[in-house]
């Protein structure tokens, strides 16, 4: 029996996997670009209405204090960054692995399956970042004179948005989205600062188990200008970072393992 050139050198395999990975990224970027208009309309409808009703209508009719729009905005950015990739990943995976199997061609490409999952995770997070960034001009238009965002912590805002989007994408790999979205959203301190919950102690504790709480609090810290000379009270940033990074690692690890389990029987 003649020997085939069966044994590829190790660097050949790494190179093949890298080329494959980049080609899959290229494919996703093309699809994102092509779907951009409908994607943005779909994802920005929710923040638009929240900003309008809570930030404009409720403050206008006196149900909410005039600063409510300002306090609300970081929460809206947080849930947009969080929810967009969560839905993108969980709907895509549910569909691809469940019945269309459109991901098969990527799973048969010469790279480890885990890289296919990581690519999906990363590009979904990118979608979340794009959507989250679009909330700012939207808020500027809707809130008008009620738009107050401090600009001295731009790096912190960007960092928090990246972490939030990655966390949303990781959770999307782990769960079917539909069931979880509502409880995550309403216990995630997106519509109220955590410190204001002191009067409902048990609920304040519940929110601490939702990673979205830390994302919203972090963004509040980075975005809200001091009110009457006092910086806004949020969860300590050290804790925010520890919890966000920790839950990201744990959830992503579990998500990748589940993915492996779903694509190789």
């Amino acid at each position, binding site marked *: 029996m003649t*020997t085939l050139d*069966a044994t590829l050198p190790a660097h050949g395999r790494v190179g093949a996997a890298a080329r494959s990975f980049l080609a899959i990224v*290229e*494919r996703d970027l093309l699809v994102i670009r092509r779907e951009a208009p409908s994607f943005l309309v779909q994802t920005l409808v929710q923040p638009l209405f929240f900003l309008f009703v809570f930030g404009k209508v409720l403050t206008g009719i006196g149900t909410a204090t005039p600063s409510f729009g300002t306090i609300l905005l970081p929460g809206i950015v947080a849930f947009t960054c969080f929810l967009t990739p969560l839905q993108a990943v969980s709907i895509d995976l549910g569909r691809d692995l469940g019945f269309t199997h*459109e991901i098969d061609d990527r799973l048969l490409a*010469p790279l480890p399956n885990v890289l296919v999952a990581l690519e999906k995770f990363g590009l979904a997070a990118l979608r979340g970042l794009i959507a989250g960034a679009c909330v700012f001009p939207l808020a500027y238009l809707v809130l008008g004179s009620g738009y107050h965002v401090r600009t001295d912590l731009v790096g912190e805002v960007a960092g928090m948005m990246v972490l939030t989007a990655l966390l949303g994408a990781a959770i999307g790999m782990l769960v079917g989205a539909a069931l979880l979205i509502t409880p995550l959203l309403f216990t995630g301190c997106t519509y109220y600062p955590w410190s204001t919950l002191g009067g409902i102690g048990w609920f304040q504790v519940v929110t601490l188990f939702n990673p979205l709480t830390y994302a919203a609090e972090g963004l509040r810290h980075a975005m809200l200008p001091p009110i009457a000379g006092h910086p806004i009270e949020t969860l300590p940033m050290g804790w925010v970072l520890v919890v966000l990074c920790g839950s990201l690692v744990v959830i992503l690890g579990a998500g990748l393992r589940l993915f492996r389990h779903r694509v190789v029987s």
Partner: protein
Amino acid sequence: MTAAIEVEHLVKRYPRGRANAVDDVSFAVLRGETFGLLGPNGAGKTTAIGILTTRVLPTGGRAAVAGIDVVADPIAAKQRIGVVPQTSNLDRSLRVREILTFHAAYHGVSRRERQARADALLEELGLAARGRDKLDWFSGGLQQRVMLGRALMHEPDVLFLDEPTNNLDPQSRLFLWDRIRALHERGVTVVLTTHDMEEADRLCDRIAIMDHGRILALDTPEGLRRLIPGGTMLEVRTRLPQAVPAGAPAGAEPVEAALAALPGVTAVERRPGSGTDDAAVYRLYATGDAGQLLASAAQAVVREEAELLDLRFARPSLEDVFIHLTGSNLRA
């Protein structure tokens, strides 16, 4: 000759499976061979292909493609194989031509080369005018062509086709058969699963007949036919004296009983009749002298006062071989 595929004592048991889906299967496929896995649904064909294409992990045994162990080195194995699945898994976010070029890009084919290959394959598959189309409204046959083109974009050593013509219209089926023959002439190793014996018979150099996770026989189509004992099959077409009441037990019909009682006859099978509705067709499996059988069968029919319409020796089909091996019908 080099083996394109080597499978040794392969076993797959799914976590909640009652039996092994693939049960101690061994075979080798030579380079350039068109090899068929023939069997009913649930025989383990798709699982076997799944293992060879890195999507299913075997419970035991060894499987290698182009000398590469698919479990130890799935990445290298994936570079050598092309896969056309049972149902469409085409990337619907892309246009037809992009499906081909991106597949090649995943496999590290250079930009210029993948454009050239996509042009050539779209032309060859009769899709030259559809490259910019979206897949919406593509028929099953057209999607099959796109999947075949995609699988060939990185010039795999071995092409796997899982039930390639299942659910295709006759025209698309013939088209695909032509393409598979052309690949064969080009020296591509093709492994296909099917429960269509005509397909296996026409396309395959060798066929493994599978049932319940095991290979029951593996040979050329001609070799498999020789497995029918005695090798004589006689078809008798008669018009019966009176219609047999519906629901009568098998063998209750006197002509059938008389035929079964002839010396050398091992089995009689009533076939679905063709043409006039009162004609009955019996197939006799027999050992011994064929001429003697012909004469005594004719006498038996006349003796039972039935009208003899036709008598002919039949060539056993692969389905006959399958029934002989398993006792059940391929489509059952």
